[in-house]
């Protein structure tokens, strides 16, 4: 475990070292938080509520998206794809470390600095959105930590499986694009899933997508019952086990196949 913690600490330092990257990320996240609330305010018009979401809940929902996203999002797909294509993977295979665990802890290192930046952005936006931005303390908040942990694992496992497509095809960007498209639509980045047709909601409810983003946000908004939270967590646990098996299988197959191209 010490070697992974060393990677974790090193990448915390790296995340603070490149200030240009941080500044750009602040600008982009600020705009992402700022744009969609205005679009939805325009959609609401004179309506106070749409499918159970009041204006305040909707604005708070979109402000919370980057807050949760920064904690749970994974870019292991890019990392793994690039390491395979450029031959760097082979240098890790001969080392006494688990490559996927290493990628997981590298990401965690980069995630340490991000929440502070997101909080800064929300504070900058607060004078403009305080009328609508509403959070409250409630008993179901105790579920937020397990929800975020489950979401983090799900994001990482799905992302790493996508990245492993590079073992079998040189041009694997298509897999990343499909994953990005599905995630954007089905995880709740565009709108809460309640806005989708009921039959689509039912299909999505059996997938891991609601747990990636929507469920943690609904817990904070107190827009979900305890029974639904428990159901989601149990479903997430099942998906984590399934994805672990798939990930392990694909990794073993892929490592046997890899030729070290790009070295």
């Amino acid at each position, binding site marked *: 475990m010490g070697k992974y913690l060393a990677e974790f600490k090193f990448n915390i330092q790296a995340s603070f070292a*490149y200030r*240009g*990257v941080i500044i*750009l*990320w602040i*600008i*982009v996240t600020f*705009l*992402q938080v*700022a*744009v969609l609330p*205005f*679009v939805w*305010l*325009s*959609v*609401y*018009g004179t*309506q106070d509520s*749409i*499918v159970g979401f009041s204006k305040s809940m909707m604005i708070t929902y979109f402000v919370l998206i980057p807050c949760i996203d920064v904690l749970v999002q994974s870019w292991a797909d890019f990392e793994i794809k690039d390491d395979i294509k450029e031959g760097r993977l082979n240098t890790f295979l001969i080392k006494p470390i688990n490559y996927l665990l290493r990628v997981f802890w590298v990401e965690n290192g980069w995630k340490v600095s991000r929440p502070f930046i997101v909080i800064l952005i929300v504070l900058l936006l607060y004078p403009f959105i305080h009328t609508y931005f509403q959070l409250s303390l409630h008993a179901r908040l105790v579920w937020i930590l397990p929800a975020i942990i489950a979401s983090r694992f799900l994001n990482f496992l799905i992302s790493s499986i996508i990245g492993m497509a590079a073992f079998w095809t040189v*041009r694997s960007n*298509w897999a990343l*694009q*499909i994953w990005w*498209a599905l995630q*954007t*639509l089905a995880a709740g980045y*565009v*709108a809460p899933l309640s*806005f*989708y047709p009921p039959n689509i909601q039912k299909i999505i409810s059996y997938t891991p997508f609601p747990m990636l983003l929507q469920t943690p946000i609904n817990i904070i908004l107190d827009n979900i019952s305890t029974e639904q939270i428990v159901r989601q967590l149990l479903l997430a646990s099942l998906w984590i086990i399934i994805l672990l098996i798939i990930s392990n299988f694909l990794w073993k197959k892929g490592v046997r196949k890899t030729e070290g191209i790009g070295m």
Partner: protein
Amino acid sequence: MKKYFRIYKVFVENGISFLVQYRHDTLFNLFMHLVWMGMMFLIVEILFGQTNAIAGWSKQEVYMLTLIWTLIGETYITFFGGNLPEIPDTITDGKLDNLITKPVNTLFLVSTKFFLVRATYRVCTELILIGWLVWQFDFAHSLSAILSCILLTLCGVMIYYASFLIANTFSFWLLRIDNINDAVDTISTFGRYPVSVFPLTIRASIFVFAPIVFASYAPVAVLTGKWPLYTSLFIIAFTIILCVIAVKFWNFAIKRYTSASS
């Protein structure tokens, strides 16, 4: 000038050769583009599932905005999308030294070397969809509105070029800003929503600091009559000024370049 045309012809031929090598990849890219367009339309449907208008824009007008936004993006990608994002690596890997020593304008080389032929398929798809939308919903009030829209769409492509060029020129001074293209790309995605959803002060700020967001808004606003025709002149003037600033900034950077490594 003839020299540059001959060189560009070679670049286009190289682009076609690349396309022929990866035929399946090209077809798959076209398929993924259609999937992605379907996703864009689904987002519009989700928004308009709850309302008839967003900031005075009807569903058809927002569809047109989405299509023009995509058309501008894909046209930019065809001519410049494979080139400008490579500028940071070109500088840090020392490849710029090789380009500077050639008897051709360096900006021309870094801007046009890769011609992405596969993006032309996507441009054609957008043009067909736009044509169908204009015919189906009778957008255009006059021929001059259509011509202004076409002209402003080309201005949109140049606004994209200037924005990405300015952003990537910063890599002469900032060592690691490889996410700058992702940043500009993310900012440009806001152009698929009507900018009139924002309060006036925010709109003015976006126009000054992120004009790329207006690149698709202007042509559709003129086409649908939301902006009077004469505003086209202002947009054209703005585009010229922005391009001049981008080129001057690049020249300023090149004059002070002392080589990263080669």
